[in-house]
């Protein structure tokens, strides 16, 4: 297996194909369109299903239908398109059928712009549609990781009969990086006892998200909550960098984490000990690990390409153990490493333990747009 240079959108599409994707339904939107475009050639070549739907609303309902038959199915979009899909996602969650979505996030709200953003966090992580449900949300920080996560997303979706969302941003979609592609998998068809495959010779099955009697619907909800508890217990993923001796902990995901990585290198060269915790699963969130780390590390900086969304989950995990600062750029702005370095220096200067002589010289950068002190 050799390294090849792949663009993020196309790499995700190919990874899905290799994972056994049988049906794709989607609608074009920048910065995700190359994903759909790639599959429009690749899927028919393999005799698999590709449909460009008339809208995102149609696409997600086609996904719903295909998911009920138990095939590996996916759609992809970017922020405004994801908003349109929320009703369908709620129905899919209520019906307990597996599917995979890709959100190549862009600047919002509204039509916003096509530059990279991370402001869909609340929508993706907290449910998005109505009702008590969760999606498993995976946040890649490189093209290779996007490939690996997409390849395993289908297994996760089937294992938990849940929605899995790849939450990336325009940077990851548009960037080219070296990738080692996983091998092509055989398409496996099996009957888990719930798929709608034609009732010949057996009892008919019903998949629906309706439960008219509260007793019935509460039982369905208890079952969903049990699934989510199992996911929280077994599927948390994160990556760490230089946390062992860190005086300051940065928590960031996706593109923002890469940029923080550059800033951490610079900070360490200046004698400020900074570490990074990068959640790979945004839900389930690595709360326990953050709580453990902040028993020792008393200063936390959260960096996001939004106005402060994941920071709320970080605060819940940290409690009163450490101070939590936030730095974000909005509207499709990607922060530069020196901006984050400025934030690090300001925190170090405030905290004698974390500040070597001269660390405060780096202040004068943009102030945190929101800051919380424990």
């Amino acid at each position, binding site marked *: 297996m050799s390294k090849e240079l792949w663009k993020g959108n196309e790499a995700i599409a190919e990874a899905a194909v290799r994972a056994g994707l049988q049906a794709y339904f989607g609608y074009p939107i*920048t910065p995700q369109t190359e994903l759909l475009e790639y599959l429009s050639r690749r899927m028919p070549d393999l005799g698999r299903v590709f449909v460009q739907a008339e809208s995102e609303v149609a696409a997600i309902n086609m996904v719903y239908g295909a998911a009920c038959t138990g095939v590996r199915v996916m759609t992809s979009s970017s922020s405004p398109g994801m908003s349109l899909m929320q009703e369908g996602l709620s129905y899919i969650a209520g019906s307990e059928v597996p599917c995979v979505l890709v959100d190549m996030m862009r600047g919002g709200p509204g039509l916003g712009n096509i530059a990279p953003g991370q402001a869909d966090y609340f929508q993706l992580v907290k449910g998005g549609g109505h009702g008590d449900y969760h999606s498993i949300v995976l946040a890649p920080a490189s093209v290779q990781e996007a490939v690996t996560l997409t390849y395993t997303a289908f297994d996760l979706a089937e294992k938990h009969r849940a929605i899995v969302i790849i939450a990336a941003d325009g940077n990851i979609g548009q*960037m*080219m*990086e*070296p990738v080692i592609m996983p091998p092509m998998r055989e398409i496996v068809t099996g009957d888990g006892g719930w798929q709608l495959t034609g009732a010949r010779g057996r009892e008919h099955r019903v998949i629906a998200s309706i439960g008219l009697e509260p007793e019935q619907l509460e039982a369905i909800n208890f079952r969903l909550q049990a699934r989510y508890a199992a996911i929280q217990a077994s599927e948390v993923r994160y990556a760490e960098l230089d946390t062992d001796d860190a005086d300051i902990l940065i928590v960031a995901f996706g593109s923002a984490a*890469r*940029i923080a990585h550059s800033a951490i290198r610079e900070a360490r060269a200046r004698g400020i000990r900074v570490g990074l915790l990068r959640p790979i699963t945004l839900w389930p969130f690595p709360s326990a690990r953050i709580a453990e780390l902040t028993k020792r590390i008393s200063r936390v900086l959260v960096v996001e390409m939004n106005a402060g969304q994941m920071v709320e989950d970080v605060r819940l995990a940290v409690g009163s153990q450490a101070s939590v600062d936030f730095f974000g750029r909005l509207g499709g702005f990607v922060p*530069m490493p020196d901006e984050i370095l400025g934030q690090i220096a300001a925190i170090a200067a405030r905290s004698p333990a974390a500040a070597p002589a001269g660390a405060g010289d780096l202040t004068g950068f943009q102030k945190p747009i929101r800051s919380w002190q424990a």
Partner: protein
Amino acid sequence: MLEEIVIAGFGGQGVLFTGQLLAYAGMTEGRNVTWIPSYGPEMRGGTAHCTVIISDEEIGSPLVKRPSAAIVLNPPSMAKYAALVRPGGTLVVDSALITERSGRSDIHEIDLPAKDIAADLGLARAANVVALGALIAATGVVQLETIVKILTSRFAARPEVLLANKRALRMGAEYVIKIVA
């Protein structure tokens, strides 16, 4: 080793392809690479640029504020990037299309008439490859032979285009070597 390179010009001048060539070459030589394009609502004739990072270490941010080198192929790109190249860095300017100069003494500015050189070879569109040859000769970021190998596999079916591109690459590199010598 860490090079952060911006390639900028008009859409249609091959700036994105030039960056991909460079990224491919870096990867072929066993380094970490990223290539990221500008992807605004752009069109042929509008401005386009890409950023290529080639590094021995894991690459953090794929975007840079101050590149270590830049190739500029039109006046708007010159206006934007001439001031941003880091001190000690390299700026390759197509002087057939850009009359301005950076006026900086703290960078290596290479002014070469890339478009004219390419036109003399009968492939005016290869100005980007001439400029790439100059950049490689000036920085040593990758080996010229690696680029030749990639061009050879890319243009296997079109030997005349391959030949012109190989010549364009060499002419760009020789132009720089002559300045230095």
